[in-house]
């Protein structure tokens, strides 16, 4: 009872004040909505610009549905039946003998599949043929299957549709077989079913393919199917099997793991059995669709990912015409071994099986399949005919036509029978040139869309800068209500105008109805914003204001960081080493702050450094006297400098520690040793550190809370119960995984199936951290406590513990919620990285608060750098193979929307999400409630969020510009294009989290809640 009365007497103000506060809150709520709508419009503008650029840059190939017809000149089939076995990710060095004393030799993945090479090397009657098989990038299974069956080059954009393959409409080998009523039976990877189901027999046996945790189901299915059908079943002409075990081992453990050895032995035995079991009239084709890199992943275009295996075998003798023995040199992992391109398989198989070559094919029959010159010239003439028909139908024109035209002429002049050698040579040349032309043409860009994208993004950047930084937040507060109607009206008007113009005049070639609407919307948003801005300000004022904003030391440092980061995309080497450079910049920030605290240079105070002042009259409700509250004017005290130095040291050391965790890019080569590998991720010492983290992470956060004595009320529950509990469960989950990886037998009483237990555990953690804890946060967990000194009621002496950080401490609980969910979806080493990140984040907040830089742009930039650093230290790189797909199967066995997607997004963009959320803490941390009006507070949060968005937008814009500039660069698809995709995605994620999470949900809720408590 006593406490209540004291509380009342402290908190209740006069009725007039209450009315004022109520009106302020009302105003705040109204403005809050307008802010959200404004930010959504800017987000939409950026999304449209990204969409335009992506459309222009990642073009897809135009495909004709023509089908090659069987004509009378067709070559009679050499084989009536064929068995095709695709072994996913069968890299070439897996199948050749490697000298055990050689430095390249690896116990786990070499010399395990030797039946292919044995058959080839001990081959006296030329019945088997082993070749290196070069895949075309991108090395994703879907693209490779398309390439393997159509003989053409699927483009990059198709890579996006790896997860929902649809039926291939263009002419392909299976379609041709289907047209002549041959029965094709299939077992294995269900991607085939998605692509080819009209052409496959109903008796086929597809198996779920994308669950990389499952190593055996597909392989066992394929083997059982083959055992059942290969000899007994007579009703097939072509039998296809697709085994995934080796690929899945690669994804799950990497190639250097004993599971790989087991899997390869299994494949080897199976192949040996097939070699024995097929009959004389059957052609056996064993091939890999792509390789794998040193981490076991694929998707890019490194040599390891491209090199695969092709093996042709028949029991009939003298089927192949070998080249000189020096072509088949297996020394040095077979680097000089004769290779053929993957697209060459289609024409070769078509010729061997007596089928017409598919219409879109660009490949060339493999030399060895022709037994003599007569046959060779036959093959060549049918291949040439198909290529020429394709060229004429597609009407492909190119500057190299000058070479192709004469070539075609001389080919038609030569009689294949009289001069076979020259004929073959000319044909080969023709195909080479033609293939080159096609490759060039399909890398053609839509420059109008690209330019539109870049221009729109630039304008959105200028808009962001002027709205969030240049216009003072106090003015913006008044302007926000004007923005929204202006934008809405202008969007409508622009749409009307654009469609009207398109209707009357002709549609411009690069936009159709849908894209026209997008363009109009973007233009509408831009005009709507600028009408409002120029209503108040002119251009010169804005430019002057920009100079003013950048006039102080820290802003200049921040701009320098931003520019350095943006300029990384000017060179492939800088882009490759982005992880180190970002860490270097973050340490530099730490060093600069350390210098600041140690030497305390007499810097002129910045234009925007003060949180606020309290005039002498006002006083504070917390009883703190006004001189303490105004301490912002004073120079730093000795204690503050000590504290600041400590935080800077923590920041620097933890940055350095975190940068030791890395999954190296392939291009970093010998200069980088990967530490984020499966071996370390399941090592006992990492699990030990994770175990320690259960206790240390809550303790660290507690420490930061204690600095402002905010460890009260809700904080212990959240930090010491929720966080610790979730960390404990998380540890159980990942140590089970680690035991699995080390192949330990896990015996848990009453539990036969560990995977079910793991799924349950993961779902409990995810459910709690994603849903329950956020609902809990909505209740408004306060971290303050009333500390009554005196039992005497009349003296009214009481302090509120944790009062100075009332906003920040509550907001950070939300960050903890998100952190809990992100930790689950990250591997143990990445979890350690998040532990470091958490400390770095809080240290940065303290530093910014101590240096009074809350309104400076350095805060959000430092946080942005932190996000990028931890993107790299959580086992990611800006490459496609480094996406941790296996995380997607933590919540569900199959791909299920939205569980798989949430898991992968939280895994990949975890640091960005955390930082986008905690950027509001720059304003809210150590912010007592009675100093700033709710509206002002919101304005500052928006401003800081805006800086973070500006940072990401600048990176995105820079990557747009440079990827366009380097579009003909050798490394564009390998380095620049993945980086541009990453930049665009991180901008999108940041936009969404900032707009909906930070501003709409968290800040609005928090500010209203705290103001209600004190003044309701």
């Amino acid at each position: 009872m006593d406490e209540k009365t004291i509380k009342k007497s402290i908190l209740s103000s006069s009725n007039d004040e209450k009315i004022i506060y109520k009106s302020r809150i009302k105003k705040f709520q109204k403005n809050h909505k307008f802010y959200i709508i404004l930010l959504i419009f800017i987000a939409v503008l950026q999304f449209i610009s990204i969409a335009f650029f992506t459309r222009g840059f990642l073009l897809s190939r135009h495909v004709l549905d023509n089908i090659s017809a069987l004509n009378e000149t067709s070559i009679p089939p050499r084989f009536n039946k064929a068995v095709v076995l695709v072994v996913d990710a069968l890299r070439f060095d897996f199948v050749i003998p490697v000298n055990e004393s050689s430095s390249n030799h690896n116990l786990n993945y070499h010399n395990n599949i030797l039946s292919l090479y044995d058959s080839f090397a001990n081959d006296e009657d030329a019945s088997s043929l082993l070749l290196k098989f070069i895949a075309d990038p991108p090395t994703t299974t879907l693209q490779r299957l398309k390439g393997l069956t159509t003989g053409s080059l699927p483009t990059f954009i198709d890579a996006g549709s790896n997860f929902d393959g649809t039926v291939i409409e263009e002419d392909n080998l299976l379609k041709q077989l289907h047209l002549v009523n041959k029965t094709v039976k299939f077992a294995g990877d269900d991607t085939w079913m998605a692509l080819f189901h009209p052409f496959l027999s109903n008796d086929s046996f597809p198996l779920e393919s994308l669950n990389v945790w499952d190593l055996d189901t597909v392989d066992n299915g394929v083997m059982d199917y083959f055992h059942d059908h290969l000899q007994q079943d007579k009703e097939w002409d072509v039998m296809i099997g697709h085994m995934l075990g080796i690929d899945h081992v690669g994804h799950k453990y990497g190639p250097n793991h004993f599971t790989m050895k087991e899997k390869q032995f299994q494949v080897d035995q199976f192949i040996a059995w097939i070699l024995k079991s097929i009959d004389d009239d059957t052609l056996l084709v064993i091939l890999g669709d792509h390789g794998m890199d040193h981490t076991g992943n694929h998707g890019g275009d490194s040599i390891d990912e491209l090199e695969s295996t092709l093996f042709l075998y028949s029991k009939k003798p003298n089927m192949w015409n070998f080249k000189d023995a020096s072509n088949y040199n297996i020394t040095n992992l077979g680097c000089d071994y004769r290779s053929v391109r993957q697209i060459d398989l289609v024409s070769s198989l078509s010729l061997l099986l007596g089928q017409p070559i598919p219409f879109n094919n660009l490949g060339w029959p493999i030399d060895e399949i022709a037994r003599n010159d007569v046959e060779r010239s036959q093959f060549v003439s049918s291949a040439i005919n198909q290529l020429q028909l394709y060229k004429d139908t597609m009407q492909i024109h190119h500057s190299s036509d000058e070479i192709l035209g004469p070539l075609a002429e001389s080919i038609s002049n030569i009689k294949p029978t009289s001069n076979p050698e020259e004929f073959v040579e000319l044909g080969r040349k023709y195909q080479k040139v033609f293939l080159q032309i096609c490759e060039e043409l399909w890398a053609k860009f839509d420059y109008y869309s690209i330019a539109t994208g870049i221009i729109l993004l630039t304008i959105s950047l200028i808009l962001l800068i002027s709205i969030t930084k240049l216009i003072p937040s106090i003015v913006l507060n008044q302007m926000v209500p004007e923005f929204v109607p202006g934008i809405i009206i202008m969007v409508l008007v622009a749409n009307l105008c654009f469609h009207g113009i398109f209707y009357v005049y002709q549609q411009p070639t690069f936009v159709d109805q849908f894209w026209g609407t997008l363009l109009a919307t973007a233009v509408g948003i831009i005009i709507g914003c600028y009408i409002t801005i120029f209503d108040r300000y002119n251009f010169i004022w804005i430019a002057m204001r920009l100079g003013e904003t950048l006039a102080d030391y820290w802003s200049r440092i921040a701009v320098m960081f931003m520019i350095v980061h943006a300029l990384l995309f000017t060179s492939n080497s800088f882009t490759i080493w982005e992880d180190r450079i970002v860490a270097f910049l973050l340490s530099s920030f730490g060093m600069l702050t350390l210098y600041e605290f140690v030497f305390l240079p007499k810097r002129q105070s910045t234009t925007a450094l003060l949180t606020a002042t309290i005039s002498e009259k006002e006083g504070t409700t917390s009883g703190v006297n006004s001189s303490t509250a105004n301490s912002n004017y004073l120079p730093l005290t000795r204690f503050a400098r000590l504290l600041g130095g400590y935080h800077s040291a923590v920041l620097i050391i933890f940055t350095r520690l975190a940068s030791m965790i890395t999954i190296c890019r392939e291009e970093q080569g010998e200069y980088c040793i990967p530490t984020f590998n499966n071996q370390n991720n399941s090592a006992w010492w990492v699990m030990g550190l994770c175990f320690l983290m259960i206790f240390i992470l809550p303790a660290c956060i507690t420490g930061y809370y204690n600095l402002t004595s905010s460890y009260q009320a809700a904080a212990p529950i959240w930090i010491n119960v929720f966080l610790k509990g979730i960390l404990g469960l998380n540890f159980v989950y990942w140590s089970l995984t680690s035991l699995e990886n080390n192949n330990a037998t896990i015996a848990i009483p009453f539990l036969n199936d560990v995977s079910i237990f793991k799924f349950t555990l993961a779902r409990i953690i995810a459910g709690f951290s994603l849903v329950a804890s956020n609902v809990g946060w909505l209740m408004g967990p306060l971290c303050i406590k009333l500390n009554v000194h005196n039992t005497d009621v009349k003296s009214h002496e009481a302090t509120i513990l944790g009062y100075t950080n009332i906003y920040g401490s509550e907001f950070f609980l939300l960050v903890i919620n998100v952190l809990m969910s992100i930790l689950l979806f990250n591997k143990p080493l990445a979890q350690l990285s998040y532990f470091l990140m958490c400390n770095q984040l809080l240290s940065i907040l303290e530093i910014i608060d101590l240096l009074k830089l809350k309104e400076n742009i350095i805060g959000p930039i430092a946080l942005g750098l932190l996000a990028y650093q931890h993107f790299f230290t959580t086992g990611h790189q800006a490459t496609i193979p480094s996406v941790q797909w296996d995380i997607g199967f933590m919540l569900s066995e199959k791909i299920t929307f939205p569980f798989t997607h949430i898991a992968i997004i939280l895994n990949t963009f975890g640091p960005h999400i955390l930082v986008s959320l905690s950027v509001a803490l720059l304003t809210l941390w150590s912010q007592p409630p009675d100093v700033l009006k709710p509206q002002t507070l919101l304005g500052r949060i928006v401003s800081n969020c805006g800086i973070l968005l500006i940072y990401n937008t600048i990176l995105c814009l820079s990557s747009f510009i440079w990827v366009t500039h380097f579009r003909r660069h050798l490394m564009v698809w390998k380095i620049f294009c993945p980086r541009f995709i990453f930049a665009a995605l991180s901008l999108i994620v940041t936009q969404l989290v900032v707009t909906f999470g930070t501003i709409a949900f968290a800040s609005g809720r928090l500010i209203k809640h705290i103001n209600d408590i004190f003044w309701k």
Partner: protein
Amino acid sequence: MSTKKRARKTVKKTVSFSDDTTLTTYQNHEKKNADHDRPPVYVRKTPLMNFPYHLVMLLYYYIFLSSDFNTVKLLSLLIPAQISYLVLQFNKCTVYGNKIIKINYPLALICLGVTFLLSFPAMLLTILFGAPLMDLLWETWLLSLHFAFLAYPAVYAVFNCDFKVGLWKKYFIFIVVGGWISCIVIPLDWDRDWQNWPIPIVVGGYLGALVGYTIGAYI
């Protein structure tokens, strides 16, 4: 309407647009301690006398003459050169409370030891900035020794003026900034010998020191 606008324009706005009210008072504090125009200890502005000729020569030797970028040899040349620079040039330009003090040889010797010890914090700094943690430690230490001995005259000056570090820190900063900027060439894929650790940083440190000792007196 139009009159209103005009009226608005004529009002001269002197207040910066920010939502705190305290800014204007701040401009007044600007130059309070401008009463004595010279700090008690400073380096005279004698460009020819101050200029570190030896650094130019060492750099020229290191980059163009020596074929293998031998960092150890460079260090053995740097140490005597720095000592003579201190004795012959730097100390003669340094003014301690309006007088030039003769070189204090025992102190110079002690400073050599201190500089050697300084290389360990410098090494820590280098590693914190991202130098390899486990391997190449020898190279990193060499680099730190270079950095430490580049700062040798400044170290002596600090000792000679009762540790008024603030007056001399610009020399240290120039060396560090030189090294900081020179990192830029390491990631480039040119495959040159001189991109090996720590050659670019050594050169960067020398350039930084060169600039520092040349213009240090003016700032």
